Protein backbone atom coordinates (compact mmCIF):
# COMPACT_ATOMS: atom_id res chain seq x y z
CA UNK A 1 0.00 0.00 0.00
CA UNK A 2 1.75 3.15 -1.05
CA UNK A 3 -0.82 5.91 -0.89
CA UNK A 4 1.36 8.29 1.02
CA UNK A 5 -0.25 11.32 -0.59
CA UNK A 6 -2.41 11.64 2.50
CA UNK A 7 -1.62 14.59 4.66
CA UNK A 8 -1.37 13.38 8.22
CA UNK A 9 -2.99 15.74 10.61
CA UNK A 10 -1.05 16.53 13.69
CA UNK A 11 -3.88 16.62 16.22
CA UNK A 12 -3.09 14.58 19.31
CA UNK A 13 -6.41 14.28 21.08
CA UNK A 14 -8.81 13.41 18.23
CA UNK A 15 -7.10 10.14 17.20
CA UNK A 16 -6.81 9.07 20.82
CA UNK A 17 -10.51 9.59 21.40
CA UNK A 18 -11.23 7.54 18.27
CA UNK A 19 -9.12 4.71 19.65
CA UNK A 20 -10.88 4.52 23.02
CA UNK A 21 -13.60 1.96 22.15
CA UNK A 22 -11.15 -0.40 20.46
CA UNK A 23 -8.61 -0.09 23.26
CA UNK A 24 -11.21 -0.66 25.97
CA UNK A 25 -12.62 -3.79 24.32
CA UNK A 26 -9.13 -5.18 23.66
CA UNK A 27 -8.08 -4.59 27.27
CA UNK A 28 -11.26 -6.23 28.49
CA UNK A 29 -11.40 -9.23 26.17
CA UNK A 30 -7.70 -9.92 25.66
CA UNK A 31 -5.54 -7.80 27.95
CA UNK A 32 -7.17 -8.75 31.23
CA UNK A 33 -7.25 -12.50 30.43
CA UNK A 34 -3.56 -12.46 29.47
CA UNK A 35 -2.60 -10.71 32.71
CA UNK A 36 -4.89 -12.94 34.78
CA UNK A 37 -3.34 -15.96 33.16
CA UNK A 38 0.22 -14.84 33.85
CA UNK A 39 -0.67 -14.15 37.50
CA UNK A 40 -2.56 -17.42 37.89
CA UNK A 41 0.26 -19.41 36.34
CA UNK A 42 2.33 -18.27 39.35
CA UNK A 43 -0.29 -19.42 41.83
CA UNK A 44 -1.58 -22.64 43.19
CA UNK A 45 -5.11 -22.52 41.80
CA UNK A 46 -6.76 -25.90 42.13
CA UNK A 47 -10.03 -27.31 43.35
CA UNK A 48 -9.80 -25.63 46.79
CA UNK A 49 -9.42 -22.23 45.18
CA UNK A 50 -12.45 -22.91 43.01
CA UNK A 51 -14.40 -23.01 46.26
CA UNK A 52 -13.19 -19.69 47.49
CA UNK A 53 -9.90 -20.34 49.25
CA UNK A 54 -7.22 -17.74 48.56
CA UNK A 55 -4.69 -18.77 45.92
CA UNK A 56 -1.15 -18.73 47.33
CA UNK A 57 1.70 -17.56 45.13
CA UNK A 58 4.03 -20.42 44.43
CA UNK A 59 6.51 -18.70 42.15
CA UNK A 60 7.58 -20.87 39.25
CA UNK A 61 6.38 -24.10 40.86
CA UNK A 62 3.78 -24.70 38.12
CA UNK A 63 6.39 -24.22 35.42
CA UNK A 64 8.86 -26.47 37.22
CA UNK A 65 6.18 -29.11 37.50
CA UNK A 66 5.49 -28.72 33.78
CA UNK A 67 9.13 -29.05 32.90
CA UNK A 68 9.34 -32.32 34.78
CA UNK A 69 5.98 -33.69 33.67
CA UNK A 70 6.59 -36.50 31.20
CA UNK A 71 2.98 -36.55 30.03
CA UNK A 72 3.10 -32.87 29.13
CA UNK A 73 6.30 -33.34 27.14
CA UNK A 74 4.62 -36.13 25.26
CA UNK A 75 1.70 -33.82 24.43
CA UNK A 76 4.07 -31.01 23.43
CA UNK A 77 6.04 -33.42 21.24
CA UNK A 78 2.89 -34.76 19.59
CA UNK A 79 1.55 -31.24 19.05
CA UNK A 80 4.79 -30.07 17.47
CA UNK A 81 5.01 -33.15 15.25
CA UNK A 82 1.36 -32.75 14.23
CA UNK A 83 1.89 -29.06 13.57
CA UNK A 84 5.07 -29.51 11.50
CA UNK A 85 3.80 -32.43 9.41
CA UNK A 86 0.41 -30.82 8.78
CA UNK A 87 1.79 -27.35 7.99
CA UNK A 88 4.44 -28.64 5.57
CA UNK A 89 2.06 -31.00 3.80
CA UNK A 90 -0.46 -28.17 3.51
CA UNK A 91 2.22 -25.95 2.05
CA UNK A 92 3.40 -28.62 -0.39
CA UNK A 93 -0.10 -29.46 -1.63
CA UNK A 94 -1.07 -25.79 -1.75
CA UNK A 95 2.01 -24.88 -3.79
CA UNK A 96 1.40 -27.73 -6.22
CA UNK A 97 -2.22 -26.66 -6.68
CA UNK A 98 -1.16 -23.04 -7.21
CA UNK A 99 1.31 -24.14 -9.91
CA UNK A 100 -1.41 -26.32 -11.39
CA UNK A 101 -3.83 -23.37 -11.49
CA UNK A 102 -1.23 -21.36 -13.36
CA UNK A 103 -0.83 -23.94 -16.11
CA UNK A 104 -4.33 -25.18 -16.98
CA UNK A 105 -7.13 -23.91 -19.21
CA UNK A 106 -9.55 -21.27 -17.97
CA UNK A 107 -12.47 -23.65 -17.58
CA UNK A 108 -10.49 -26.20 -15.58
CA UNK A 109 -9.09 -23.42 -13.42
CA UNK A 110 -12.57 -22.12 -12.67
CA UNK A 111 -13.76 -25.59 -11.64
CA UNK A 112 -10.75 -26.10 -9.40
CA UNK A 113 -11.10 -22.67 -7.79
CA UNK A 114 -14.81 -23.04 -7.11
CA UNK A 115 -14.21 -26.43 -5.54
CA UNK A 116 -11.44 -25.07 -3.31
CA UNK A 117 -13.56 -22.09 -2.32
CA UNK A 118 -16.45 -24.33 -1.29
CA UNK A 119 -14.14 -26.41 0.90
CA UNK A 120 -12.58 -23.27 2.36
CA UNK A 121 -15.90 -21.71 3.24
CA UNK A 122 -17.23 -24.69 5.21
CA UNK A 123 -17.71 -23.81 8.90
CA UNK A 124 -15.28 -25.94 10.86
CA UNK A 125 -17.95 -27.68 12.94
CA UNK A 126 -20.02 -28.56 9.85
CA UNK A 127 -16.88 -29.83 8.11
CA UNK A 128 -16.06 -31.98 11.12
CA UNK A 129 -19.47 -33.65 11.13
CA UNK A 130 -19.08 -34.59 7.45
CA UNK A 131 -15.56 -35.91 7.91
CA UNK A 132 -16.59 -37.96 10.94
CA UNK A 133 -19.40 -39.41 8.82
CA UNK A 134 -17.00 -40.07 5.94
CA UNK A 135 -14.62 -41.92 8.27
CA UNK A 136 -17.42 -43.81 10.06
CA UNK A 137 -16.22 -47.37 10.38
CA UNK A 138 -19.36 -49.15 9.21
CA UNK A 139 -21.24 -46.82 6.89
CA UNK A 140 -18.56 -44.29 6.02
CA UNK A 141 -17.78 -43.65 2.37
CA UNK A 142 -14.01 -43.83 2.90
CA UNK A 143 -13.87 -47.43 4.10
CA UNK A 144 -16.35 -48.33 1.36
CA UNK A 145 -14.26 -46.71 -1.37
CA UNK A 146 -11.03 -48.20 -0.03
CA UNK A 147 -12.66 -51.64 -0.01
CA UNK A 148 -13.31 -51.28 -3.73
CA UNK A 149 -9.58 -51.14 -4.44
CA UNK A 150 -8.56 -54.72 -5.33
CA UNK A 151 -6.57 -56.31 -2.54
CA UNK A 152 -7.58 -53.77 0.09
CA UNK A 153 -9.74 -55.13 2.90
CA UNK A 154 -10.62 -52.49 5.48
CA UNK A 155 -12.70 -54.80 7.72
CA UNK A 156 -14.63 -51.78 8.96
CA UNK A 157 -11.45 -50.24 10.22
CA UNK A 158 -12.06 -47.83 13.11
CA UNK A 159 -9.93 -44.82 12.17
CA UNK A 160 -10.33 -43.16 15.54
CA UNK A 161 -9.24 -46.18 17.56
CA UNK A 162 -5.47 -45.64 17.65
CA UNK A 163 -3.76 -42.33 18.46
CA UNK A 164 -1.74 -42.52 15.25
CA UNK A 165 -4.64 -43.00 12.83
CA UNK A 166 -6.69 -40.56 14.91
CA UNK A 167 -4.07 -37.84 14.42
CA UNK A 168 -3.63 -38.82 10.77
CA UNK A 169 -7.36 -38.28 10.23
CA UNK A 170 -7.14 -34.93 12.06
CA UNK A 171 -4.21 -33.97 9.87
CA UNK A 172 -6.03 -34.90 6.65
CA UNK A 173 -9.02 -32.80 7.72
CA UNK A 174 -6.87 -29.80 8.68
CA UNK A 175 -4.95 -30.06 5.39
CA UNK A 176 -8.22 -30.23 3.46
CA UNK A 177 -9.44 -27.08 5.21
CA UNK A 178 -6.19 -25.13 4.93
CA UNK A 179 -4.98 -25.91 1.41
CA UNK A 180 -7.42 -23.52 -0.33
CA UNK A 181 -6.06 -20.48 1.54
CA UNK A 182 -2.47 -21.53 0.78
CA UNK A 183 -3.20 -22.30 -2.87
CA UNK A 184 -4.98 -18.99 -3.48
CA UNK A 185 -2.31 -16.95 -1.69
CA UNK A 186 0.55 -18.57 -3.59
CA UNK A 187 -1.37 -18.36 -6.85
CA UNK A 188 -1.80 -14.62 -6.22
CA UNK A 189 1.95 -14.43 -5.77
CA UNK A 190 2.56 -16.43 -8.95
CA UNK A 191 0.44 -14.12 -11.07
CA UNK A 192 2.86 -11.34 -10.21
CA UNK A 193 5.81 -13.19 -11.71
CA UNK A 194 6.25 -11.57 -15.11
CA UNK A 195 5.67 -13.74 -18.16
CA UNK A 196 8.46 -11.97 -20.05
CA UNK A 197 11.08 -13.04 -17.57
CA UNK A 198 9.84 -16.62 -17.78
CA UNK A 199 9.83 -16.55 -21.58
CA UNK A 200 13.32 -15.11 -21.65
CA UNK A 201 14.46 -17.92 -19.36
CA UNK A 202 12.77 -20.47 -21.58
CA UNK A 203 14.50 -19.05 -24.65
CA UNK A 204 17.78 -19.32 -22.80
CA UNK A 205 17.05 -23.01 -22.37
CA UNK A 206 15.92 -23.20 -18.74
CA UNK A 207 13.84 -26.32 -18.11
CA UNK A 208 10.49 -26.16 -16.30
CA UNK A 209 12.07 -27.30 -13.06
CA UNK A 210 14.88 -24.76 -13.36
CA UNK A 211 12.44 -21.98 -14.13
CA UNK A 212 10.54 -22.87 -10.99
CA UNK A 213 13.58 -23.18 -8.77
CA UNK A 214 15.59 -20.18 -9.95
CA UNK A 215 12.93 -17.67 -10.99
CA UNK A 216 9.50 -18.44 -9.57
CA UNK A 217 10.52 -19.78 -6.16
CA UNK A 218 12.66 -16.78 -5.16
CA UNK A 219 9.94 -14.39 -6.26
CA UNK A 220 7.18 -16.05 -4.26
CA UNK A 221 9.39 -16.78 -1.26
CA UNK A 222 7.89 -14.00 0.91
CA UNK A 223 4.36 -15.32 0.34
CA UNK A 224 5.46 -18.86 1.08
CA UNK A 225 7.20 -17.76 4.27
CA UNK A 226 4.12 -15.96 5.59
CA UNK A 227 1.70 -18.68 4.59
CA UNK A 228 3.87 -21.34 6.23
CA UNK A 229 4.15 -19.26 9.37
CA UNK A 230 0.40 -18.79 9.64
CA UNK A 231 -0.13 -22.52 9.09
CA UNK A 232 2.37 -23.38 11.83
CA UNK A 233 0.66 -21.01 14.25
CA UNK A 234 -2.83 -22.27 13.37
CA UNK A 235 -1.89 -25.94 13.44
CA UNK A 236 -0.17 -25.65 16.80
CA UNK A 237 -3.34 -24.45 18.49
CA UNK A 238 -5.69 -26.85 16.71
CA UNK A 239 -8.58 -27.52 19.07
CA UNK A 240 -12.01 -27.82 17.45
CA UNK A 241 -10.99 -30.66 15.14
CA UNK A 242 -9.38 -32.69 17.93
CA UNK A 243 -12.22 -32.01 20.34
CA UNK A 244 -14.86 -33.15 17.87
CA UNK A 245 -12.92 -36.24 16.82
CA UNK A 246 -12.66 -37.07 20.53
CA UNK A 247 -16.44 -36.67 20.80
CA UNK A 248 -16.83 -39.28 18.07
CA UNK A 249 -13.98 -41.53 19.19
CA UNK A 250 -12.05 -41.70 22.40
CA UNK A 251 -11.37 -38.77 24.72
CA UNK A 252 -8.56 -40.48 26.63
CA UNK A 253 -5.32 -38.62 27.23
CA UNK A 254 -3.53 -40.51 24.43
CA UNK A 255 -5.56 -38.53 21.92
CA UNK A 256 -4.72 -35.09 23.32
CA UNK A 257 -2.85 -32.24 21.70
CA UNK A 258 -2.05 -28.99 23.54
CA UNK A 259 -5.49 -27.42 23.02
CA UNK A 260 -7.49 -30.31 24.44
CA UNK A 261 -4.85 -30.90 27.13
CA UNK A 262 -5.31 -27.36 28.47
CA UNK A 263 -9.07 -27.70 28.16
CA UNK A 264 -9.04 -30.84 30.28
CA UNK A 265 -6.69 -29.31 32.86
CA UNK A 266 -9.12 -26.44 33.21
CA UNK A 267 -12.44 -28.31 33.05
CA UNK A 268 -12.00 -31.85 34.41
CA UNK A 269 -9.02 -31.34 36.70
CA UNK A 270 -10.04 -27.77 37.61
CA UNK A 271 -6.34 -26.96 37.94
CA UNK A 272 -6.31 -23.40 36.66
CA UNK A 273 -2.75 -22.76 37.82
CA UNK A 274 -1.31 -25.52 35.64
CA UNK A 275 -3.73 -24.81 32.80
CA UNK A 276 -2.58 -21.19 32.81
CA UNK A 277 1.06 -22.20 32.80
CA UNK A 278 0.55 -24.43 29.74
CA UNK A 279 -1.47 -21.67 28.07
CA UNK A 280 1.38 -19.23 28.62
CA UNK A 281 3.66 -21.75 26.93
CA UNK A 282 1.34 -21.83 23.90
CA UNK A 283 1.08 -18.03 23.83
CA UNK A 284 4.86 -17.68 24.06
CA UNK A 285 5.47 -20.06 21.15
CA UNK A 286 2.77 -18.29 19.12
CA UNK A 287 4.20 -14.83 19.72
CA UNK A 288 7.72 -16.02 18.98
CA UNK A 289 6.55 -17.50 15.68
CA UNK A 290 4.43 -14.46 14.77
CA UNK A 291 7.08 -11.84 15.35
CA UNK A 292 8.35 -12.29 11.80
CA UNK A 293 4.87 -12.02 10.33
CA UNK A 294 4.08 -8.96 12.45
CA UNK A 295 7.27 -7.28 11.34
CA UNK A 296 6.40 -7.78 7.69
CA UNK A 297 2.92 -6.31 8.26
CA UNK A 298 4.44 -3.33 10.10
CA UNK A 299 6.65 -2.68 7.10
CA UNK A 300 3.50 -2.44 5.03
CA UNK A 301 1.99 -0.02 7.53
CA UNK A 302 4.99 2.25 7.26
CA UNK A 303 5.18 2.13 3.50
Amino acid at each position, binding site marked *: *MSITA*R*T*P*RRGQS*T*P*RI*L*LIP*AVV*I*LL*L*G*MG*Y*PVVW*QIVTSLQEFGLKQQFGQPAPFVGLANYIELATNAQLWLVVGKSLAFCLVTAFLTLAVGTLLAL*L*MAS*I*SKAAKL*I*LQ*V*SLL*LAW*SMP*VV*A*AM*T*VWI*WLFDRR*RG*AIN*YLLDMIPGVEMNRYDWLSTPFSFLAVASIIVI*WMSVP*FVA*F*SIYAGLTQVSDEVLEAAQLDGASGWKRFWFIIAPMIRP*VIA*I*VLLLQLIWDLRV*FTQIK*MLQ*DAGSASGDYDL*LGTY*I*YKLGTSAQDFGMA*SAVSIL*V*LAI*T*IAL*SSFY*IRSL*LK*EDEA
Partner: protein
Amino acid sequence: MTTRKVVLNVVAILVALVWVFPVYWMVNSSFVPTAVLSSFIPTFFPIHPTVSNYTGAVADGTFFAALGMSVGITLTVVFFCIIFAFLAAVAISRFRFRGRRSFVIAVLVVQMLPAEGLFIAQYKMVASVHLLDSVIGVSVIYIAAVVPFTIWMLRGFVAGIPADLEEAAMVDGLSRFGAFMRITFPLLAPGLVASGVYAFLQAWNEFTVALVLLPSEAAQTLPLWLRGFVQASATRETDWGQVMAASTLVAVPVIVFFLIVQGRLTSGLVSGAVKG
Protein backbone atom coordinates in the same frame (compact mmCIF):
# COMPACT_ATOMS: atom_id res chain seq x y z
CA MET B 1 -3.59 -28.16 -26.62
CA THR B 2 -0.50 -30.21 -25.91
CA THR B 3 -0.83 -33.63 -24.27
CA ARG B 4 0.86 -32.20 -21.22
CA LYS B 5 -1.81 -29.57 -20.83
CA VAL B 6 -4.59 -32.11 -21.32
CA VAL B 7 -3.11 -34.28 -18.57
CA LEU B 8 -2.80 -31.27 -16.26
CA ASN B 9 -6.41 -30.28 -16.92
CA VAL B 10 -7.58 -33.79 -16.09
CA VAL B 11 -5.51 -33.77 -12.90
CA ALA B 12 -7.02 -30.42 -11.95
CA ILE B 13 -10.57 -31.71 -12.43
CA LEU B 14 -9.79 -34.80 -10.34
CA VAL B 15 -8.33 -32.66 -7.55
CA ALA B 16 -11.42 -30.44 -7.73
CA LEU B 17 -13.66 -33.48 -7.32
CA VAL B 18 -11.70 -34.76 -4.33
CA TRP B 19 -11.75 -31.37 -2.64
CA VAL B 20 -15.42 -30.69 -3.14
CA PHE B 21 -16.44 -34.23 -2.22
CA PRO B 22 -17.05 -33.64 1.54
CA VAL B 23 -19.20 -30.60 0.75
CA TYR B 24 -21.11 -32.60 -1.85
CA TRP B 25 -21.42 -35.49 0.57
CA MET B 26 -22.93 -33.28 3.23
CA VAL B 27 -25.61 -31.91 0.89
CA ASN B 28 -26.18 -35.29 -0.78
CA SER B 29 -26.62 -37.21 2.47
CA SER B 30 -28.93 -34.54 3.82
CA PHE B 31 -31.46 -35.43 1.10
CA VAL B 32 -31.22 -39.22 1.32
CA PRO B 33 -33.99 -40.91 3.32
CA THR B 34 -32.82 -42.40 6.62
CA ALA B 35 -33.78 -45.93 5.62
CA VAL B 36 -31.59 -45.76 2.50
CA LEU B 37 -28.76 -44.10 4.37
CA SER B 38 -28.56 -46.81 7.01
CA SER B 39 -27.69 -49.50 4.48
CA PHE B 40 -24.03 -50.40 4.32
CA ILE B 41 -23.68 -49.28 0.72
CA PRO B 42 -23.24 -45.50 0.51
CA THR B 43 -25.68 -43.60 -1.67
CA PHE B 44 -23.77 -41.39 -4.06
CA PHE B 45 -26.80 -39.59 -5.50
CA PRO B 46 -30.05 -38.67 -3.77
CA ILE B 47 -32.27 -40.69 -6.14
CA HIS B 48 -35.43 -40.27 -4.10
CA PRO B 49 -34.69 -36.97 -2.36
CA THR B 50 -36.54 -36.10 0.80
CA VAL B 51 -36.60 -33.10 3.10
CA SER B 52 -37.57 -35.24 6.09
CA ASN B 53 -34.02 -34.99 7.41
CA TYR B 54 -34.40 -31.23 7.56
CA THR B 55 -37.77 -31.31 9.28
CA GLY B 56 -36.41 -33.95 11.67
CA ALA B 57 -33.31 -31.90 12.50
CA VAL B 58 -35.28 -28.80 13.47
CA ALA B 59 -38.22 -30.68 15.01
CA ASP B 60 -37.45 -30.37 18.71
CA GLY B 61 -37.05 -26.60 18.70
CA THR B 62 -33.46 -26.59 19.95
CA PHE B 63 -32.39 -25.55 16.45
CA PHE B 64 -34.39 -22.34 16.63
CA ALA B 65 -33.12 -21.59 20.14
CA ALA B 66 -29.55 -22.02 18.90
CA LEU B 67 -30.30 -20.00 15.78
CA GLY B 68 -31.61 -17.18 17.98
CA MET B 69 -28.49 -17.27 20.13
CA SER B 70 -26.20 -17.29 17.10
CA VAL B 71 -28.04 -14.44 15.42
CA GLY B 72 -28.02 -12.38 18.63
CA ILE B 73 -24.30 -12.85 19.19
CA THR B 74 -23.40 -12.37 15.53
CA LEU B 75 -25.36 -9.13 15.15
CA THR B 76 -23.87 -7.73 18.36
CA VAL B 77 -20.36 -8.59 17.23
CA VAL B 78 -20.79 -7.24 13.69
CA PHE B 79 -22.36 -3.99 14.92
CA PHE B 80 -19.74 -3.11 17.53
CA CYS B 81 -16.86 -4.46 15.52
CA ILE B 82 -17.61 -2.24 12.57
CA ILE B 83 -17.99 0.89 14.71
CA PHE B 84 -14.94 0.28 16.89
CA ALA B 85 -12.75 -0.80 13.98
CA PHE B 86 -13.88 2.08 11.81
CA LEU B 87 -13.01 4.68 14.46
CA ALA B 88 -9.64 3.08 15.12
CA ALA B 89 -8.88 2.73 11.40
CA VAL B 90 -9.56 6.43 10.86
CA ALA B 91 -7.30 7.27 13.79
CA ILE B 92 -4.31 5.26 12.56
CA SER B 93 -4.59 6.05 8.86
CA ARG B 94 -5.61 9.72 9.00
CA PHE B 95 -3.50 10.89 11.94
CA ARG B 96 0.08 10.71 13.06
CA PHE B 97 0.31 10.79 16.82
CA ARG B 98 2.48 9.51 19.63
CA GLY B 99 1.50 5.99 20.62
CA ARG B 100 0.25 5.18 17.11
CA ARG B 101 2.98 2.64 16.43
CA SER B 102 2.50 0.97 19.81
CA PHE B 103 -1.19 0.66 19.07
CA VAL B 104 -0.56 -0.87 15.63
CA ILE B 105 1.88 -3.38 17.11
CA ALA B 106 -0.57 -4.21 19.90
CA VAL B 107 -3.31 -4.83 17.35
CA LEU B 108 -1.10 -7.14 15.31
CA VAL B 109 0.04 -9.09 18.37
CA VAL B 110 -3.47 -9.45 19.75
CA GLN B 111 -4.61 -10.70 16.35
CA MET B 112 -2.26 -13.65 16.73
CA LEU B 113 -3.29 -14.60 20.28
CA PRO B 114 -5.15 -17.91 20.14
CA ALA B 115 -8.40 -18.39 22.04
CA GLU B 116 -7.01 -21.85 22.71
CA GLY B 117 -4.41 -20.25 24.98
CA LEU B 118 -6.78 -17.87 26.75
CA PHE B 119 -10.05 -19.63 27.37
CA ILE B 120 -9.36 -20.52 30.99
CA ALA B 121 -8.86 -16.86 31.88
CA GLN B 122 -11.80 -15.76 29.74
CA TYR B 123 -14.01 -18.32 31.45
CA LYS B 124 -12.94 -17.14 34.89
CA MET B 125 -13.45 -13.50 33.96
CA VAL B 126 -16.90 -13.96 32.44
CA ALA B 127 -17.99 -16.26 35.28
CA SER B 128 -16.91 -13.72 37.89
CA VAL B 129 -19.36 -11.16 36.49
CA HIS B 130 -22.10 -13.79 36.08
CA LEU B 131 -22.25 -13.54 32.29
CA LEU B 132 -21.79 -17.21 31.41
CA ASP B 133 -24.53 -18.41 29.04
CA SER B 134 -25.25 -14.83 28.02
CA VAL B 135 -24.95 -13.04 24.69
CA ILE B 136 -22.93 -10.22 26.26
CA GLY B 137 -20.19 -12.38 27.77
CA VAL B 138 -19.37 -14.20 24.53
CA SER B 139 -19.78 -11.07 22.44
CA VAL B 140 -17.19 -9.10 24.42
CA ILE B 141 -14.61 -11.84 23.85
CA TYR B 142 -15.55 -12.19 20.17
CA ILE B 143 -15.36 -8.45 19.51
CA ALA B 144 -11.93 -8.30 21.11
CA ALA B 145 -10.80 -11.25 19.01
CA VAL B 146 -12.20 -9.95 15.72
CA VAL B 147 -11.59 -6.20 16.01
CA PRO B 148 -7.82 -6.34 15.35
CA PHE B 149 -8.12 -7.89 11.89
CA THR B 150 -11.08 -5.63 11.08
CA ILE B 151 -9.04 -2.56 12.02
CA TRP B 152 -6.26 -3.84 9.80
CA MET B 153 -8.61 -4.40 6.88
CA LEU B 154 -10.33 -1.02 7.19
CA ARG B 155 -7.03 0.76 7.64
CA GLY B 156 -6.17 -0.17 4.07
CA PHE B 157 -9.51 1.12 2.80
CA VAL B 158 -9.31 4.43 4.66
CA ALA B 159 -5.73 4.97 3.56
CA GLY B 160 -6.77 4.27 -0.03
CA ILE B 161 -9.10 7.28 -0.06
CA PRO B 162 -7.04 10.41 -0.62
CA ALA B 163 -7.48 12.96 2.14
CA ASP B 164 -7.24 15.57 -0.66
CA LEU B 165 -10.78 14.67 -1.66
CA GLU B 166 -12.04 15.57 1.78
CA GLU B 167 -10.04 18.74 1.82
CA ALA B 168 -11.41 19.79 -1.54
CA ALA B 169 -14.91 19.36 -0.15
CA MET B 170 -13.96 21.44 2.84
CA VAL B 171 -12.71 24.21 0.59
CA ASP B 172 -16.12 24.06 -1.04
CA GLY B 173 -17.69 24.82 2.32
CA LEU B 174 -18.36 21.52 4.06
CA SER B 175 -17.29 21.01 7.65
CA ARG B 176 -14.65 18.36 8.34
CA PHE B 177 -17.31 16.04 9.69
CA GLY B 178 -19.59 16.83 6.76
CA ALA B 179 -16.81 16.20 4.27
CA PHE B 180 -16.04 12.91 5.94
CA MET B 181 -19.65 11.75 5.96
CA ARG B 182 -20.44 12.83 2.40
CA ILE B 183 -17.18 12.00 0.64
CA THR B 184 -15.15 9.43 2.54
CA PHE B 185 -17.90 7.38 4.11
CA PRO B 186 -19.62 6.31 0.86
CA LEU B 187 -16.26 5.36 -0.63
CA LEU B 188 -15.63 3.22 2.43
CA ALA B 189 -18.82 1.23 2.07
CA PRO B 190 -17.20 -1.82 0.39
CA GLY B 191 -14.62 -1.94 3.17
CA LEU B 192 -17.30 -1.78 5.84
CA VAL B 193 -19.24 -4.55 4.14
CA ALA B 194 -16.12 -6.73 3.87
CA SER B 195 -15.23 -6.25 7.54
CA GLY B 196 -18.82 -6.82 8.57
CA VAL B 197 -18.92 -10.10 6.70
CA TYR B 198 -15.58 -11.10 8.20
CA ALA B 199 -16.94 -10.43 11.71
CA PHE B 200 -20.08 -12.37 10.82
CA LEU B 201 -18.10 -15.40 9.67
CA GLN B 202 -15.95 -15.41 12.79
CA ALA B 203 -18.83 -15.04 15.24
CA TRP B 204 -21.08 -17.49 13.41
CA ASN B 205 -18.47 -20.25 13.16
CA GLU B 206 -16.66 -19.85 16.47
CA PHE B 207 -16.54 -22.99 18.58
CA THR B 208 -13.85 -22.93 21.27
CA VAL B 209 -14.89 -19.84 23.23
CA ALA B 210 -18.57 -20.71 22.88
CA LEU B 211 -17.89 -24.19 24.26
CA VAL B 212 -16.30 -22.68 27.37
CA LEU B 213 -18.52 -19.64 27.93
CA LEU B 214 -21.89 -21.21 27.11
CA PRO B 215 -21.99 -24.34 29.26
CA SER B 216 -25.78 -24.55 29.50
CA GLU B 217 -27.72 -26.43 26.83
CA ALA B 218 -30.30 -23.68 26.73
CA ALA B 219 -27.70 -21.15 25.59
CA GLN B 220 -26.06 -23.07 22.74
CA THR B 221 -24.99 -21.42 19.52
CA LEU B 222 -25.39 -23.29 16.23
CA PRO B 223 -21.88 -24.84 16.24
CA LEU B 224 -22.48 -26.18 19.76
CA TRP B 225 -25.90 -27.44 18.76
CA LEU B 226 -24.39 -29.21 15.78
CA ARG B 227 -21.70 -30.75 17.94
CA GLY B 228 -24.45 -32.15 20.17
CA PHE B 229 -25.48 -34.41 17.27
CA VAL B 230 -21.99 -35.85 16.90
CA GLN B 231 -21.62 -36.25 20.64
CA ALA B 232 -24.85 -38.19 20.82
CA SER B 233 -23.54 -40.46 18.07
CA ALA B 234 -20.97 -41.92 20.46
CA THR B 235 -23.72 -43.52 22.52
CA ARG B 236 -26.58 -44.24 20.14
CA GLU B 237 -27.08 -44.97 16.46
CA THR B 238 -26.54 -41.70 14.64
CA ASP B 239 -29.13 -40.45 12.22
CA TRP B 240 -26.53 -39.20 9.76
CA GLY B 241 -29.16 -37.83 7.41
CA GLN B 242 -30.30 -35.45 10.12
CA VAL B 243 -26.77 -34.52 11.13
CA MET B 244 -25.95 -33.68 7.51
CA ALA B 245 -29.15 -31.67 7.15
CA ALA B 246 -28.22 -29.78 10.32
CA SER B 247 -24.69 -29.18 8.99
CA THR B 248 -26.06 -27.90 5.71
CA LEU B 249 -28.34 -25.48 7.55
CA VAL B 250 -25.39 -24.10 9.50
CA ALA B 251 -23.06 -24.00 6.49
CA VAL B 252 -25.19 -22.43 3.77
CA PRO B 253 -25.26 -18.82 5.05
CA VAL B 254 -21.54 -19.02 5.69
CA ILE B 255 -20.75 -20.30 2.20
CA VAL B 256 -22.81 -17.53 0.61
CA PHE B 257 -21.19 -14.73 2.60
CA PHE B 258 -17.75 -16.22 2.35
CA LEU B 259 -17.84 -16.23 -1.44
CA ILE B 260 -18.57 -12.49 -1.31
CA VAL B 261 -15.46 -11.53 0.65
CA GLN B 262 -12.91 -14.25 0.02
CA GLY B 263 -10.77 -12.14 -2.32
CA ARG B 264 -10.30 -9.47 0.31
CA LEU B 265 -9.58 -12.02 3.02
CA THR B 266 -6.73 -13.57 1.07
CA SER B 267 -5.16 -10.26 0.19
CA GLY B 268 -5.67 -8.95 3.74
CA LEU B 269 -3.79 -11.82 5.31
CA VAL B 270 -0.81 -11.88 2.98
CA SER B 271 -0.85 -8.40 1.50
CA GLY B 272 2.48 -7.55 3.09
CA ALA B 273 4.10 -10.39 1.21
CA VAL B 274 2.37 -10.12 -2.14
CA LYS B 275 2.90 -6.44 -2.53
CA GLY B 276 6.47 -6.57 -1.25
